[in-house]
């Protein structure tokens, strides 16, 4: 049966379409080298894909010629084991097979343990969350990774823990719902102690917490934690929106870490939900000392809210009174795309896609925050919630670079866009055509090409690790070690090649920062191409 299949494949491949080739290889588990059957291998932006056989082999035919992103995804073993994937850039030549495109998949790890209270009683229904630290938009942010809930024995298992990455582990009691006016006793001394969000191995703050780093496939057990108790406080206040007293949907969350997209994907954890009273009043209780975020909106079925606000408050050692949150109507974000220097003649026909991505929450259904301006051109996003956003730009031609992007004077390439924070501000996108590019070739010291390496380009003048993380340009070489950058602003850069992927964690960025003076220095002149040959480095 297998022979027959193979013969059929050969037969089909004997008459390839003019402009297609093939990709084949083996998918293995990285540390053991064992073949991975049933892994899916797909060619990006095409419907060409295949699955590995019992020996981990795959072969994909009729792949369009040119540079293709090929992704191998681990088989879906279970609901909780989110598939891990590896991508490669492969240059496919017409009528030829790119053989030996082999993938090494890392098996995710798991962390198990029990959550107890001060009586050593198991705590059911506790949220256990891994928190990733990463530089994003100019600062160190704490974002949720995987999550589990304890069972009746206080036990939890966190699946799909990314190996080699340092995480904090946090346990907390998060209620699904809250009352507008909590019935908690007026006197704090008559209240039950609050459950404080607790970091492993038993501290209320991120700073004293221990980092957990797993090996591929490691099943770490016994990560037990006693949850901390603290005095319990309330925050009282009112939500207003200008149109008289009314009830508003509200969401409350601690801000030790936040939901949102990160380099590892996106994890969203439901905040505690509730409504204010009909008079807009709230009394939120069972709060341990710490910082909280209250989000206010108006409820509209299957459409985004039209008013919105977030308010941060800090509980120290007493109840908080007179908290006032003013929900703001949606704001219009106007924008313009302009050329630095002369405009091309004839003008470009492509359009840019400008998207606003909420930084710490999932977008609402029907929340439309993208626009497709011409280059040059103006655009408007008429109803943006007064929140913090990351800007995604797509459709920038290869020979053009983003010179500036500001909103109300803030560089929103390296800081979040705070919609409505500055009156009458415009999102200014300035593009330039005088950029140069880097043509990199990665080879070992004997001159043999090294496929799949990452090439990183770092501006020489950056003041901090956070700024470095915000300005790195990187790409992946194809199977013969070739990578060509898109247009970059003229200037001086460090350039290096890494055999392994990098990320925006403080560990990864710290290594780059610490050894940056050892990297190759290049000067990109306007409209030039700089050829570099790099040997892959190991920063460990």
């Amino acid at each position: 049966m297998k022979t027959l299949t193979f013969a059929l494949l050969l037969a089909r491949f004997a008459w390839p379409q003019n402009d297609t080739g093939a990709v084949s290889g083996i998918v293995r588990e990285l540390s053991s080298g064992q073949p991975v059957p049933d892994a899916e291998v797909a060619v990006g932006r095409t419907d060409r894909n295949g699955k590995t056989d019992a020996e981990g082999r795959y072969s994909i035919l009729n792949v369009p010629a040119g540079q293709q992103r090929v992704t191998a995804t681990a088989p879906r073993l279970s609901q909780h084991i989110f598939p891990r994937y590896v991508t490669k850039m492969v240059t496919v030549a017409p009528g030829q097979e790119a053989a030996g495109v082999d993938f090494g998949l890392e098996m995710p790890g798991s962390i198990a343990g029990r959550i107890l209270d001060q009586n050593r009683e198991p705590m059911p229904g506790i949220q256990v969350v891994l928190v990733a630290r990463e530089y994003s938009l100019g600062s160190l942010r704490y974002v949720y990774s995987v999550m589990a809930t304890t069972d009746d024995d206080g036990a939890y298992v966190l699946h799909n823990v990314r190996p080699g990455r340092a995480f904090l582990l946090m346990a907390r009691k998060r209620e699904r719902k809250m009352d507008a006016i909590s019935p908690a006793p007026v006197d704090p001394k008559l209240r039950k102690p609050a459950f404080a969000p607790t970091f492993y191995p038993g501290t209320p703050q991120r700073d004293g917490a221990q980092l957990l780093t797993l090996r591929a496939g490691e099943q770490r057990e016994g990560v037990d934690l006693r949850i901390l108790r603290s005095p319990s406080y309330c925050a009282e206040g009112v939500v207003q929106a200008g149109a008289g007293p009314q009830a508003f949907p509200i969401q409350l969350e601690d801000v030790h870490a936040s939901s949102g997209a990160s380099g590892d994907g996106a994890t969203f954890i439901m905040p505690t939900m509730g409504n204010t009273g009909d008079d807009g009043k709230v009394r939120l209780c069972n709060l341990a000392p710490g910082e909280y975020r209250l989000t206010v909106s108006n409820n509209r079925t299957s459409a985004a809210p039209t008013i919105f606000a977030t308010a941060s408050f800090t509980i120290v050692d007493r109840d908080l009174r007179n908290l006032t949150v003013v929900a703001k109507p949606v704001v219009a974000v106007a924008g313009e795309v302009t050329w630095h220097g002369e405009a091309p003649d004839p003008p470009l026909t492509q359009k840019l896609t400008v998207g606003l991505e909420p930084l710490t929450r999932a977008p609402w259904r029907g929340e439309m925050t993208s626009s497709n301006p011409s280059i040059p051109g103006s655009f408007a996003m008429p109803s943006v919630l007064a929140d913090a956003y990351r800007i995604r730009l797509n459709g920038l031609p290869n020979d053009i670079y983003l010179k500036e992007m500001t909103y109300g004077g803030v560089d929103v390439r390296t800081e979040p866009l705070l919609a409505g924070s500055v009156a009458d501000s415009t999102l200014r996108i300035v593009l330039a055509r005088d950029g140069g590019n880097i043509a990199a070739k990665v080879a070992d010291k004997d001159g043999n090409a090294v496929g799949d390496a990452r090439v990183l380009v770092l501006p020489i003048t950056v003041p901090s690790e956070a700024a470095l993380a915000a300005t790195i340009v990187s790409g992946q070489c194809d199977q013969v070690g070739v990578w060509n950058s898109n247009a970059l602003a003229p200037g001086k850069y460090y350039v290096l090649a890494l055999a392994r992927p990098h990320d925006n964690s403080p560990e990864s960025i710290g290594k780059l920062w610490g050894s940056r003076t050892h990297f190759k220095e290049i000067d990109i002149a306007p409209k030039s191409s700089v050829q570099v040959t790099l040997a892959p480095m190991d920063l460990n």
Partner: protein
Amino acid sequence: MRARFVPVALAVSVASAAFSATLSGRVVNDHEGAAVASADVRVFRTGIPGLTAELETDSEGRFYAEGLPDGEYRIEVSKLNHIASSVRTQLSASTPTTLRLRLIRCGAISGRVLQAGGQPVTGAVVYAMRTGAGAPRAEQTPGRFAHVDSQGRYRLFNLPPGQYLVAAAFGATTVRLGSSGDAGAVPGLGSGVQFYPSNARPQPFTITSGEAFPNIEISVLPSSLYSVSGAVSTSGPKTPGVFWLALASIEQPSVAVAATIAKEDGAFRFTGIPPGIYDLFASGPATGRGSSGASLSKEARFARTRVTVGSQDVEGLTLDASPGMSVTLRLRTPPSGCGSQAQLTLTSVEDWAAELIRQSPFTLAEPLTLAGLAPARYRVAVTGLGEACHVPQETVLDLSAGAREQLIITAVPAGAIHVTIAGEAKSAATVVLVDVTDRSQPLRVAGPDAKGQYTFGSLRPGRYRLSAKMSDAQQSRWTDETSAGVFIDVPAGEPVRVELPLP
């Protein structure tokens, strides 16, 4: 941040000469008489809004508060994975009050889901299905369903007293499809629902108080497997988006045997389906997805048909999806006692791999018309009627055979039972009330006051069993003994008075 993290203060005091009553007590579990640590003790003073004090039991199960104002109090004791208990008591400066309360622990069922060769059935979802009024139902409540891990292990908990069937859904389950957008049959096993120990004779587990059933191994055996394929068509205007389909056994429709997503042109194909008689459900276009399946818009279309899988593949099925139906609901209420605003919740008894749940505020005087309903069997719940008013029986809105114009739901005044415990030490008793008409209703646990009295109010009219035992009795597991206690038919309106002897 200058946060202070302190050892837990278990005793509270209000240092004032005017307040001098003390309250103390101990909480034990019902099945062993052992201390229940870390239970919440909430103290409410009659006539005063809000909580007077929040306490927590220590490692010996004890709680203590002093300096409380004289008066009548309600004390609620609760803990996760336990049935809450409440007691009324008089507190006065002259006599310290000491309470003894029993908490009934919920049960747990755990084990593995394995193939014949002992390999785990990864990706399976295990449900504890409560038997009671109507067909056993699968709930998406924490603890009552569980994902098996990579070794095939599962653990069900938070199971109040009652009878449960245990079943594993494997392969292309609704939960997996809804969570990941992609779910397929297990090689060699296909998709299906496997009850413990067999689908022909499911074994019920009886939980009365804190039972744990370990090592309950669900074996999924290979079966001959077939495919079911066809296409969904719509006669109306073409809307973007795809249809979601579910195949559910006609005996047990609350968990689908398999779920799948149709292609853009409406073509669908289930693989790995064991022989059986099924209902095939289609709904779409999907606007998103969640753990109970596709999210649907108000313009969603639906179809259902009966499919028999015998000894060959079923091909060429055609389903014509039609717009949803409209039904007008009216609520008949007694002349007084019911609130004027209620909340209506419709949930599908059948697993359509779609979010068919509908919720709407319900103003009692006005008929409510719900549009866009699927040709499904819906369970109708009316909540928020107030303590004095109930919808007596579970109401089912059956649209499976076609539209109906209206549904009348009748509410009646709530009933009540005044219990008086006879004999010595009457205040040291624990009283349990079980709804026998619908055993899936929560159990109520209470402690009588110093005169041995307690009132269970806001009862749905129907048959109940009332039983009592000494709070410090050591023997266990009595809530489900049908021999113990007295049966009481609670009518609407007038309270029933019962004198209950202690055993």
